[in-house]
């Protein structure tokens, strides 16, 4: 009875997603090739039901389930909704991109949904055991997803990810064991209570630094970010779209929770996080200048954007949290827009090299416009949501204190570099293609096309009328 009430109050969406995965894996035993279209529909329906079920979760007061190892409040429900919407879009994006290369789509969707499921668990974790298990599950699903594409590159990328991630996980577990040794508990609430009564020692600082390593790896912050370029290039594009969004949302959300509840007793950690995010921004943006492949460029861009969010996040306050949420939401849509453009190109037999974009302004003006909106949004030009996000980010940092202005100025310079390479991509589309005109991309409403236009429209709309979204973000941040 207790179990059922726990599930229905906090884990309903995960439960529905689990059933969907189960159905998918059972069906895949019987119909391997014939009904591959069916798998997409099952996955979509599962995600939509799971999204819908968020409505029935208990928000007030905060609900703790399974002996306080899982938490359900406004913040988790909001992040779960964002993750599920993103998952819905990625499933739509991945149809042709996957089936073209490999007919075993049931497995693909099973893996993808498992990864989404584990991200949901990461978000609602209230206990280091839950967090560890769900992070590991996320990593395992990601290994297979990366290696899913045929060819040598994806295998290499997957292996690189496995090796570096094992290191990060081991470090993380080491940190958790320290913390357990100090407080003899794994529960976030109990640990927080312990440090309210006891003075934190140097071992506390060491342990939270080690735990942060595991999380920073997922976010691709500098010392732990060497995997990101190869993984983005090597894996299937829809998988790259997945890696650039869902794990980052989940890990940023749990990082926010940890920073608020457990990591807040040390002044060393925020300083180190700021330092790392600044050097990551410099590194990622400088690396992006020389990239000749749009996927590698987007990899750098995602690393840079996450570093901005981490900067704002490390100075914990309600205002900064709402900034991070707003930045995250706008970033997701611009990023998915850019990825859907790449997927449209790949579906029409273009490669992901940058020079393929030449001349698109003349053969596909609408595509160019939508893609340019996403790119200018990432660069942070006005009338896109990226501009508002940038404005909000700067105001949050300056509000935190005048001492953060020097790192902010370095960040500002890296944003200028970012402006250079995003504009370069848009400029390429206006260059005449020397050999011949590009073929016109299919204009029928295939799902990546619709998503590209929708993302561009959202980017512009939020850029013009940001009020509603800002209020939502403030409300959510206030509730953490």
């Amino acid at each position, binding site marked *: 009875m207790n179990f059922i009430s726990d599930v229905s109050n906090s884990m309903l969406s995960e439960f529905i997603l689990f059933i969907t995965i189960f159905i998918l894996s059972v069906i895949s035993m019987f119909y391997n090739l014939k009904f591959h279209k069916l798998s997409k529909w099952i996955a979509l329906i599962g995600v939509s039901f799971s999204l819908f079920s968020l409505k029935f979760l208990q928000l007030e007061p905060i609900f703790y389930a399974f002996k306080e190892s899982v938490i359900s409040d406004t913040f988790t429900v909001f992040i779960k909704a964002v993750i599920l919407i993103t998952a819905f879009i990625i499933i739509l994006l991945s149809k042709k991109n996957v089936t073209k290369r490999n007919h075993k789509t049931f497995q693909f969707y099973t893996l993808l949904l498992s990864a989404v499921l584990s991200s949901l668990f990461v978000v609602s974790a209230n206990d280091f055991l839950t967090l560890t298990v769900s992070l590991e599950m996320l990593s395992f699903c990601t290994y297979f997803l990366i290696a899913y594409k045929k060819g040598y590159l994806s295998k290499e990328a997957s292996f690189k990810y496995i090796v570096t991630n094992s290191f990060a996980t081991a470090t993380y577990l080491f940190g958790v064991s320290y913390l357990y040794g100090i407080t003899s508990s794994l529960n976030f609430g109990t640990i927080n209570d312990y440090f309210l009564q006891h003075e934190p020692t140097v071992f506390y600082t060491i342990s939270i630094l080690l735990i942060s390593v595991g999380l920073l790896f997922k976010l691709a912050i500098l010392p732990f970010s060497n995997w990101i370029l190869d993984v983005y290039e090597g894996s299937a594009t829809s998988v790259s779209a997945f890696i650039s969004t869902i794990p980052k949302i989940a890990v940023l959300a749990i990082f926010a929770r940890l920073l608020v509840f457990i990591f807040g007793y040390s002044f060393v950690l925020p300083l180190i996080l700021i330092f790392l995010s600044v050097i990551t921004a410099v590194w990622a943006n400088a690396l992006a200048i020389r990239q000749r492949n749009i996927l590698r460029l987007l990899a750098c861009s995602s690393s840079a954007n996450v570093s901005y969010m981490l900067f704002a996040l490390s100075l914990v306050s309600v205002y900064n949290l709402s900034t991070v949420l707003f930045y995250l939401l706008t970033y997701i849509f611009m990023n998915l827009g850019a990825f859907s453009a790449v997927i449209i190109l790949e579906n029409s037999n273009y490669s992901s090299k940058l020079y393929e974009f030449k001349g698109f302004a003349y053969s596909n003006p609408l595509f160019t416009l939508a893609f340019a909106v996403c790119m*200018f949004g990432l660069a942070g*030009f*006005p*009338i896109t949501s990226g*501009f508002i996000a*940038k*404005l909000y980010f*700067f*105001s949050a940092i*300056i*509000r935190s204190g*005048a001492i953060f*202005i020097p790192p*902010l*100025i370095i960040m*500002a*310079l890296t*944003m*200028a570099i970012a*402006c*250079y390479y995003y*504009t*370069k991509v848009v*400029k390429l589309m*206006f260059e005449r293609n020397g050999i011949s005109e590009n073929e016109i991309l299919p204009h029928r409403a295939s799902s990546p096309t619709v998503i590209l236009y929708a993302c561009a429209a959202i980017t512009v709309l939020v850029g*013009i*009328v*940001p*009020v*509603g979204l*800002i*209020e939502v973000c*403030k409300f959510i941040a206030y509730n953490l």
Partner: protein
Amino acid sequence: MDLKVLVFAPLIFSLIFLLPIFSGRSILIRRIAKTLAGIHFLYSLMFLVFFDNSQTYNYPTELTFMGQKWFGSLGISLSMGLDGISLLFVLLTSFLIFIACLASKGAVNSKHSLYYALIFILETALLGVFSSTDMFEFFMYWEMELIPMYFLISLWGSGNAKKSAMKFLLYTFIGSLFMLCGFLMLYNFNFISTSQLTADISSLKFDYDNAPMYLQIVTSILILIGFAVKLPIVPLHSWLPSAHVDAPTPVSMLLAGVLLKMGAYGIMRFNIQMLSDAFLILVPYIAILAFINVVYAAILAYYQVDIKKIVAYSSISSMGLVLLGLCSSNSIGICGAVILMLAHGIISAGLFFVVGIIHKRTGTRQLVLLSGIASVMPRLAGFTLILVLASIGVPLLMSFPGEFLIFFGALISSLTNNYLIQVVALSSIIILVLAACYLMKLMHGVFYQELSEQYLKLKDVTVNEFIVLFTLSLIVIVFGILPMSIIDIISPYINVIVEAFGG
């Protein structure tokens, strides 16, 4: 009389040009663009007619979304209004866009609909910069102007256009990021001292009981960097010659005519009016920079071989004088700076247009290859002479009252105790000689020497070009004779700006 209509009408025009019915019909597109720009200019003149210089803001208006402000809770809104200074710049923008549309005939030969759409998007951004009364709205338009300008230079430019366009974009973007930091500090400290979240330009204050002086100076410098790139002040100027030279003629006219004025306008609004205490400390350094600007750019202009580069460097030099006028921080000097800005907007647009005509006819812009074309193009030579004399600062032409008031204002300035500004002003008077040197060299080299054989069959100005040159020259002469008509409009507002310095 709705300011919203004035600012956003060009944005709607630009959407019209992207309709598919226009594809390939270049003449129709140009005619429609000219007509729309003309109507827009006439409409903006109506704002002058009903202007009342006793109010703080004329025609105040605010854009709301279903009753909501832009960033409701943060006190940031899309509110607009005109005072005397911004009204004149709005008129200048609208007029120069019209002139640029006229001048585009022959200068732009491909992708017409995209070109005019970008020009009109640019117009909205420029009008927005001059008419916004909210700091962040100002910044939004400031950034919004970059994208159309980048594409206008890069797609229709000649020579090394792509590189120059990227240089322009990066310089301005980096500058504006510094400016954004400064704006946010201003916003934040205003919040700390008045506990009111607002970004309204007229009510923002940097109250320095609550914040130390050095923070105000840092804020002032950060904001100044953004404006200094645009103005340009000398160490940050190197985007300007390349962008001006590689841009197509109408775009160079707009760059020199309007975009450079945004920097000085911003310094006036933010550095002088809001951060007056910090400006008082920074003034000696800015004055020295202004002097370097004036002399260094003039010397560089003298040694250029490309006539478009001469005009481009002369712009930098004039902007140095404007900066000197702003440094004097009394109503006379700032009044002179505003007049010189307007005059320079008209004159440099005209000079770039002349250079465009010469380049189109002869196929070269090298000073050594051109000579004696006055005998085949007498009308062009006449108009050029008016513009060149005006640029040098000959009395009864438009920039003379500006330069005179700037020097006068600087000489009676009482800002610093050690007469630094007076010394700078007196040394800057050398510009009158230097400007005469390089502009007369241009005039003499291009128009008055022996005519070489290859230029015998050049045609004089066409009707279209005649209209452009005649209009510009007429304005130069009329306002040279009647500068009081400008001063009457702006003087109440300039008194508000210099209030903190005791007039």
